[in-house]
């Protein structure tokens, strides 16, 4: 630990020393830059999620943490130790593979015991730890099965047990729920979080599924073309996206172009030609005046009504052109006089309700704190 403090001396020591520190990591494959100058700090016991589309570099970053790829530049510190050049078989890190990578010629127990055996752990201890781990993932009695005799969910749990049995400092999970069907997924993701809390192992998860990221992660890092665009809690990322891409990538959003016409520290007004009006936002933005900006409004933050709302700003009128009843909520498409179509989601609070109809003329409104102004 002492070594780490001196090594990270340049970093402000306000927060506790990060458990995992990634320092300006770059990975190039020939001319292609897979990961570009990524710096990241992950605290002990955190579930950190790397979220991004395919080819954004998230898997390469994970593989560098595991030691399968050597960084072109930069360094990785785990628990204060520089592991950048440490081969995978000597890192205090284990990984759960997307394909689970269970050894097909070994039984469940042999799979789980594999890692302990490499360390030369005693036979009795291996046996008791394997049993303990298997009961933790609720696979007692499956010791003698081969992987092909298991269902997808069971395989996933064996993979998890195998990766956790060595008590790694850091567990890497590559799309941990990707191969499971929807029902099993929801069940498993809560189980995964429970297990993590029980063991206190730091998780780094890679996924392209934003719902998976939102439910699992304590913090999310959104990646695009090898760079991390934003790091924050799921709520931060959802409510305060810092760029067009993040706003668009996480959840559904109405994105309109605009121009700053009034820029005060406590509020701004943005002229949006697509909406045919002016958007009033009750917080300031750090952007040069007259600069082109984008306004992002989440569909669930817009309210629909038959009567004209009383608030003076952020009120529009439109015609409903599409209705999708989802049970818990209803999604509407509302066409404005300008021709622009806004997406609106309304919760179905009452069972008996005179629902809005197709082609109906409705008023739209939103609170002045709802729009997010992004400049890039």
């Amino acid at each position: 630990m002492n070594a780490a403090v001196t090594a990270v001396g340049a970093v402000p020591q306000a927060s506790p020393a990060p458990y995992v520190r990634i320092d300006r990591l770059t990975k190039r494959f020939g001319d292609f830059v897979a990961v570009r100058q990524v710096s990241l700090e992950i605290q002990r016991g955190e579930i950190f999620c790397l979220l991004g589309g395919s080819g954004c570099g998230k898997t390469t970053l994970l593989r560098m943490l595991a030691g399968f790829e050597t960084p072109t530049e930069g360094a990785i510190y785990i628990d204060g130790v520089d592991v950048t050049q440490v081969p995978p078989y000597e890192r205090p890190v284990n990984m759960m593979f997307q394909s689970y990578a269970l050894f097909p010629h070994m039984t469940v127990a042999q799979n789980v015991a594999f890692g302990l055996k490499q360390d030369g752990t005693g036979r009795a201890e291996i046996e008791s730890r394997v049993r303990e781990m298997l009961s933790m993932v609720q696979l007692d009695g499956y010791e003698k099965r081969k992987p092909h005799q298991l269902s997808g969910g069971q395989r996933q749990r064996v993979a998890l047990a195998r990766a956790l049995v060595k008590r790694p400092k850091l567990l890497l999970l590559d799309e941990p729920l990707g191969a499971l069907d929807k029902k099993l997924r929801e069940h498993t993701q809560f189980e995964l979080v429970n297990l993590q809390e029980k063991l206190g192992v730091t998780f780094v998860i890679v996924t392209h599924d934003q719902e998976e990221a939102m439910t699992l992660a304590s913090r999310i890092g959104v990646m695009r073309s090898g760079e991390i665009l934003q790091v924050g809690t799921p709520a931060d990322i959802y409510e305060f996206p810092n760029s067009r891409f993040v706003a668009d990538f996480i959840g559904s959003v109405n994105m309109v172009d605009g121009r700053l016409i009034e820029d005060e520290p406590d509020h701004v007004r943005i002229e949006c030609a697509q909406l045919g009006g002016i958007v009033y936002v009750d917080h300031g933005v750090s952007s040069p005046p007259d600069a082109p900006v984008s306004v992002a409004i989440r569909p669930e933050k817009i309210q629909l009504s038959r009567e004209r709302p009383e608030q003076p700003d952020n009120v529009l009128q439109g015609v409903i052109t599409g209705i999708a009843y989802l049970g818990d909520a209803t999604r509407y498409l509302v066409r404005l006089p300008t021709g622009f179509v806004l997406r609106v989601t309304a919760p179905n609070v009452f069972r008996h309700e005179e629902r809005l109809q197709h082609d109906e003329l409705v008023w739209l409104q939103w609170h002045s704190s709802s729009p997010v102004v992004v400049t890039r």
Partner: protein
Amino acid sequence: MNDRRSFFVLTMLVFGFAFLYLPIVAMVIYSFNASRLVTVWDSANSPTLAWYVELFKNTQIMDAAKLSFRIASVNATGAVILGTLAAFALERYRRFRGRALFGLLTTAPMVLPEVITGLSLLLLFVALEQAVGWPHGRGSTTITIAHMTFSMAYAIVVIQARLATVDRSLEEAAMDLGARPWKVFVVITLPLIASAIASAWVLAFILSWDDIVITSFVSGPGSTTLPQLVFSKVRLGVSPDINALATILVLIVSVAVVVAGTYMMRRDRRRMRDAQAALGATG
């Protein structure tokens, strides 16, 4: 319509099998022929096992068979070891200097005319003997080395094809769990490609077992392999004990094929059943 089609299929089947197997059947039948002339059926004294007895008494043939067996086994083992290493290098180290050239060179013996391979090996062996005194003369050693050079090419193809289907993440997972690269190769990679190694071994064995062209170039006076012997006997006029020998070989091959086939079918069926059981368990 259906009837006509099945009739057509049946005819094709019969003709196909007849084309492939009638000569062998004829040979098997004639191996029980009492006559000394291969083409004349001596119906008075046949069938008889006389030629089988003769065959086992014929030390020349038995020696040649033993030599061929020894060469083929050593060759197959060597070819599989070298082939596995080469296949691993080609498949797992995707980028190294001269990889394309290496790949090309390893498979070249498959397309090179055997006469050229044989001649060049002969020249090499002679030059080597003059330069370093090894290999001493031509014999089973030079034959084995020569056979290895071309059967290795086939072994590489078979093993590399299997290696390509082995999920790399299995090896990475083993490494991630603390196994060093060599250990990973022994406990993970080798078991997973074992079936391919076995087939490569059999293939290399058979290639060596019936090779005559290359063997002719690199064999010496004391070392006559079975194909060489058969070939020289045939040139003097076929003697019926060759039929007996061939029949025994056919028998061995058939038994091996049937056993291997049954084993594989059983294994596949068991796997399928297990997979279904696992799916059923999740409900």
